[in-house]
Each structure stands twice: as structure tokens, then as C-alpha cells.
């Protein structure tokens, strides 16, 4: 587990992995370990967040992230309220500032927010005293997704240091890619990206990320391959000429993977476009970590909720010392 590493506090909000240290990220992964076991129990619930109120504020549609957070919250015994943009006051033109003020007035303990604008989570976190967890803000970050990915990789490889991970696809528009890049860099992994140049944002090399223009060389280099969803609208916006061509040039196929000497585990944040960025036999194949990712999602989110919640974290260590 902790390898004697001192546990690191996370602060009030989880906005992204960029501002976190490697120790903070590993603390979250370590804390997720015991939470995995809770989901295996007969009664999948611990009372630790009893009486705490959590609002899941989703300004963008989401199924799996919202459900995963909801499971995590309920298994920690929190009271949860789901608010989606459809039919809410948001559609009536309420600003995010007013939404924040209203949440504050209702004495919410934590807010899990997904929003279409980059920076929205930080914006909210800076304006309310409740804890804010970013469940995806525009193209900025999706930290809990990357944390569950890191946990899945650590489960698979035993460690993350020096692990060579390549992220394939639409890096430019992907908050998942950004959070994974930061997370992997922070814990000492080697990170590369691969995709058409139109979908690679500028400045990645400055961050220490390798860029592979060809999927074949990426597969040769990496120990694990992280495949991103290619959205249909990217074709309409002229980033790629067609989905068929994308599949031919960048699709992760068993034929391409078979050319590698090693067996390369495959991750995908879902939902998948089978036959576009990933072929079905890869997605359903023996090296797919896609379902373990989903399982780990609940444990990681429990860990994040647990670590951010409660009283004053700095007292925690003192309490541990004082215990007879």
C-alpha cells in the first residue's frame, strides 16, 4: 500500500490533476484500495459520509460518470441530489455565479460538477465553501477518470514509475487526455500521444510528452495503449476527412497489436465507437482493461469523496497519533 509514504492532503477541491503532486495522486490511489473491497461486501455501504449532502450538478449529459459518482456517494452513505441542466434554472438563463450562491445558501457539503466550459469547476470552487469535484469541465480536465485509469494501470503493472503509456486519438478536444497526461507525468510515467496532427494540441513536447504521428511506432514504443473516442463532429469540423480514413490510419486493430512482441493492455474511457477508433475484437479481447476501469471508477471516486470530505484534514494525523 502506502510504502511508508506520508499521506498528502488534497485541499478543498479536486479541479484537476495538474495542480496535484505525485504524492497526492498516489495517496488517492492508496485510499482507493480499501474502498474496492467495500463494493464486494454483502452490504455495500459504510457510514462515513452519513449526513453529508452531495449535489451532482451535470450541465452536460453523462451516464457512466454520473452513475459511478452516485454509486460512490451512496456507498459512503451520503445524501445525494442530482441536478441536470435540462429543465433546471440553468436553462432559464441563470449564471454559474447565481447557481453557486444558491448552492451555498442550501448548505451543500460537496458538489460534483460537469460543465461544458473549461475552468468552470475552479470558478465554482473559488466561490463556495463546499468541496467541489470536477467531473469534467470543457476540454480542461476530468480528474477522476484519469485517477481510475492510473489505478487500473497500477493494478495491471504493479507500479507506474517509468511505465510507457501512449494516448491515441483526439487529444486536442479531450479532457480525459489532459488529466491522464498530468497524472501520468506526476507519478513518473513516460507519456506519449498519437493521432492526426490536426488533433494534437500545441506545446505538448514542452510538457515532456512524446508525439507519434504513426500508430505503428506508438504501439512499438508503449507498454499500455489508451484509446480515446473520436467524435463524429470532428469530421464535420474538418479535423479528419472521414471516420473510415481515421480507422484505416489510426484505428487500434488486433492486426496492428499482433505485430508487437508484447501483449499491450488497452484502456478506453468509453463510450466506444467500435470500428472507428477501436475494433471490437480488441475492445472485447483478453488484454482489454475497459471493464476493470469501470469497476475502479467507483473505488477511486469513493476515495476522492472521502479524502475531500469531513472536518479539518490537518487534524487527521493528530487523531491517528492520539489513538490508544
Amino acid at each position, binding site marked *: *500500500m*502506502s510504502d511508508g509514504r506520508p*499521506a*498528502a*492532503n488534497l485541499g478543498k477541491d479536486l479541479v484537476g490533476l495538474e495542480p496535484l503532486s505525485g504524492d497526492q495522486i498516489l*495517496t488517492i490511489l*492508496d*485510499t482507493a*484500495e*480499501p*474502498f474496492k*473491497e*467495500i463494493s464486494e*461486501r*454483502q*452490504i455495500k*455501504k*459504510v*457510514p*462515513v459520509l452519513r*449526513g453529508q449532502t452531495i449535489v451532482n450538478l451535470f450541465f452536460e449529459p453523462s451516464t457512466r460518470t454520473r452513475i459511478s459518482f452516485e454509486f460512490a456517494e451512496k456507498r*459512503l452513505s451520503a445524501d445525494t441530489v442530482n441536478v441536470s441542466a435540462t429543465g433546471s434554472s440553468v436553462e432559464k438563463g441563470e449564471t454559474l455565479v447565481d447557481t453557486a450562491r444558491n448552492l451555498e445558501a442550501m448548505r451543500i457539503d460537496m458538489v460534483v460538477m460537469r460543465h461544458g466550459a473549461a475552468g468552470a469547476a475552479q470558478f465554482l470552487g473559488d466561490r463556495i465553501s463546499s468541496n467541489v469535484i470536477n467531473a469534467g469541465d470543457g476540454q480542461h480536465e476530468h480528474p477522476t477518470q484519469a485517477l481510475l485509469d492510473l489505478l487500473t494501470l497500477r493494478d495491471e503493472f504493479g507500479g507506474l514509475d517509468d511505465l510507457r503509456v501512449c494516448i491515441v486519438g483526439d487529444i486536442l478536444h479531450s479532457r480525459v487526455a489532459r488529466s491522464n497526461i498530468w497524472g501520468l507525468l506526476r507519478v513518473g510515467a513516460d507519456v506519449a500521444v498519437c493521432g492526426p496532427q490536426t488533433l494534437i494540441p500545441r506545446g505538448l513536447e514542452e510538457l515532456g510528452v512524446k508525439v507519434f504521428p504513426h500508430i505503428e511506432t506508438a504501439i512499438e514504443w508503449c507498454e499500455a495503449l489508451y484509446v480515446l473516442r473520436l467524435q463524429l463532429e470532428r469530421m464535420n469540423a474538418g479535423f479528419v476527412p472521414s471516420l473510415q480514413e481515421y480507422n484505416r490510419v489510426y484505428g487500434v486493430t488486433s492486426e496492428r497489436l499482433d505485430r508487437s512482441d508484447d501483449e499491450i493492455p488497452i484502456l478506453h474511457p468509453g463510450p466506444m465507437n467500435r470500428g472507428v477508433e477501436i475494433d471490437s475484437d480488441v475492445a472485447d479481447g483478453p488484454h482489454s482493461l475497459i471493464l476493470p476501469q469501470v469497476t475502479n471508477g467507483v473505488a477511486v471516486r469513493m476515495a476522492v469523496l*472521502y*479524502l*475531500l*470530505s*469531513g*472536518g*479539518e*484534514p*490537518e*487534524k*487527521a*494525523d*493528530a*487523531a*491517528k*497519533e*492520539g489513538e*490508544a
Partner: protein
Amino acid sequence: MDREDVEVRLDALADDILEAGGHQDLVLVGIRRRGVQLANRLADIVREKTGRQVPTGSLDITLYRDDFAQIGPRPLIGSTELPSEISDHRVVIVDDVLYTGRTVRAALDEIADFGRPRRIELCVLVDRGGRELPIQPDYVGRAVEVESGRQVAVSVPEIDDDLAVHTVPEEPEE
């Protein structure tokens, strides 16, 4: 208490536990951290006496504490590992020191989330009094009076390189 005293007490506790209910459906569950080592020691003694290994488990009650809202989260949670079947068994909770009773209360809650034992009992090496809940031990190694400003510290070899019980100056209140 030095090592010899503690070993004598543990032997006597094992006798008491066996005498009260035998070993047939016995499960020894230690509370992290030092209760786990004591439970394992008791299991070893029971095996010497009966020739049978009784199942043991460990409980981390962090997530069941009643002072979470005051002290906040503790990042390092130990794992809870219980034998696959505790329902209809006789579970003996083992801890090093019994004081306020709040830890035992949390342990009872946690065990209930794993199943419904036939009976739950409590075994402690040291009872120092000062209960804040209506909880009493079934098996006590030694009851002690502790002067105000001091607290009981149990050492086990796996953690502290010693097997002993001392009183030490109290840690400041939270």
C-alpha cells in the same frame, strides 16, 4: 506488564474463550492495528491447545468512526479482511485497550455489514475504564486504573519490537 506477564494473560484469555464456548464456530477478529496481532497470537495459542486453526480477521474501523465530522478523513485506511463466512458464527472481537467503547461500537457496526453472527463477544488485553457507551468486555486480561494525564500503551512485536503494556503521558486532546 512485561512480555512474560502479557503472555500469561493471553494464555488465560484463550482458556476463558475456549471454556465459554469451545472452538467449533469461533472466529477471532482483531481491530487494527494492535488488536490484529493480539488476535493472531490468541489463534496460535488456541491451535496449541486444541490442534485446530480457528479463522481470524481484521477490522479497520476508520470508516465507522463517530467523530469523522470533527477530525476529518484519514488518508491511510487499513483493509478490513473478514473470513468469508461470519454469519451464525461466534465472533470474538479482540483489541488491545478498552477505554471509551467507541471503537468497539464502530466495530460492531462494521461486522453487521458483513453478516449476522450467532454471537459477538469482546476480548481486551487491558480495560482501563472510562466508558462513554454501555459496552463491557467478556474477557479481560487485566483491569487497570490510570492516573489522569496518562494513557495505556500496548506494544506488540510486529509493530513495536516488544510485547508489553505500559502507561505513558497522554497525548493532548483533539
